[in-house]
C-alpha cells in the first residue's frame, strides 16, 4: 500500500470512528428518552 493510500485509509477510519461514536451517543440518548417516556407518562 502506498503512503498516500495509507493516509487515506487512516482518514477513512477516523471518519468512521467519529460517526460510530456519534451513533452510540444517539443510541444512549434515544433509549434514555424511551425510559423517561415510561417513567414520566
Amino acid at each position, binding site marked *: *500500500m502506498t503512503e*498516500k*493510500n495509507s493516509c*487515506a485509509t487512516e*482518514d*477513512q*477510519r*477516523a*471518519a*468512521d*470512528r*467519529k*460517526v*460510530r461514536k*456519534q*451513533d*452510540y*451517543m*444517539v*443510541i444512549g*440518548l*434515544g*433509549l434514555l*428518552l*424511551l425510559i*423517561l*417516556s*415510561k417513567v*414520566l*407518562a
Partner: protein
Amino acid sequence: MAQTQISQAQSQSLSTQIAKAIPGLILVVLVAIAATWAEGYIKGNFKKVYEIAHLNYVLLAIIFGMLIRNTVGVPSVLEPGLKYSTILTKTGIVVMGTKYTLASLVKVGTTSMIFIAVTLFGTVALMFWLRKRYEMTDSLAGCLASGFAVCGVSATVATGPAVKAKGQEMCYTIATILIFGLLALFTFPALGHLFGLTQNQFGAWVGVGIVNSAQVLAAGMAYGDEAGLMAGIYNMGRVVLLPFVVLYVVMLVLKNDSKSAGEINKTQFVMDKFPVFIIAFLIAVLANTAGLFSKEEVKMANTFMTWAFTLGFASIGLTTKFSDMKAAGKDGIVLGFIVGFIKAAFALVVVKFILPL
C-alpha cells in the same frame, strides 16, 4: 458551517465539550421555544397564512435560526453548542420508533425498498454519467454522487476519506446538498398540494426526493403528521442502504485504479459504515409492537421526539450561512441540482402512479 460539521472530531474530554456547548445549546432551546410559540400565535391569529404557508414549528425553527445567523450573527462562544443537529435529529428518529409497529414497517414492503434502492443507485449512476460534461475531480463527483443519493451530510462524510476527497470538496458537497434541501423544504409541500399527493405519497416522495435526513423529516412534518411518519420510514430505508451506496461510489471512483479497488475489503467496509443507531430505532419499534408502551407513554415519547426535532431544526437554521452557499460556486451546484431534480421528478411519478400508498 460545513467545515464545522466535518471537523467535529476533536479530542476534547466529554466534560469540556459539554461545558463549551452549553451557551450555544441555550440559544438553540430559545429558538425552539420561540418557534413553538410562534406556531400557536400564527395559527390563532393568522389562520389563512398558517394554512397557505404551512408555517409550523419545523419551518419556523429553521427560519428563525437562519434569520439570527444571517442578520445579527452568532458569537463564537455559542458555536460549539450549535453542531449537534445530527445527534438531535437522529435521537428524534430513535424515539419516533414508538410510533411504528413491525406491521407498519412491513406494510412499506419490498416494493418500496426496491424503489428506494433503484432511486439511490440510479442517482449515483446518473451523477457519474453527467459529470463527464463538467469540470470536476473524481473525488468531488464521488462526494456529490453519494451525498445526493443517500442522506446528505452523513454520506458525504462517509465517502470523502474513501475517495481521497479534500476537505473543501466535502464542504462544497455539503453546502450544495443543503441549498438543494432548503429550496426543496420550502417548495415541495406546495408542490405536494399542487399534485394532490396524499399524506403517505408525500412522505414517500420527500423520503427519497430530498437528501438531508433532517430536511426530509422537516418537509414531511410541514405537510402533516402522517407524511412525517412516512418520510421517516423511507428515510430509514435509505439509511440502511448507505454503506452499500458508498461502496458503489468508491468502486466507481477507483475503477481506473484497480490496485486500490482491489485493496478494499468489501464486507469490512460495509460493517464499518453501517449506521448502528438504527438498532435503537428497531428496539423502539419492537417494544411498541410487543405492547410495552401504553397510549400515554407513546404520547410522552411523541413530545420528546417533537422537541428533539425542533432543537435539531433550530440548530440547522443557526448554522446555515448564506455566504457558504454563495461560496459553493457554480458547476457542482448545477450538476447537483440537475441530478436532484431528475431524482425528485422520478420519485414523484413513482409515488403518484405506481406505488400502492
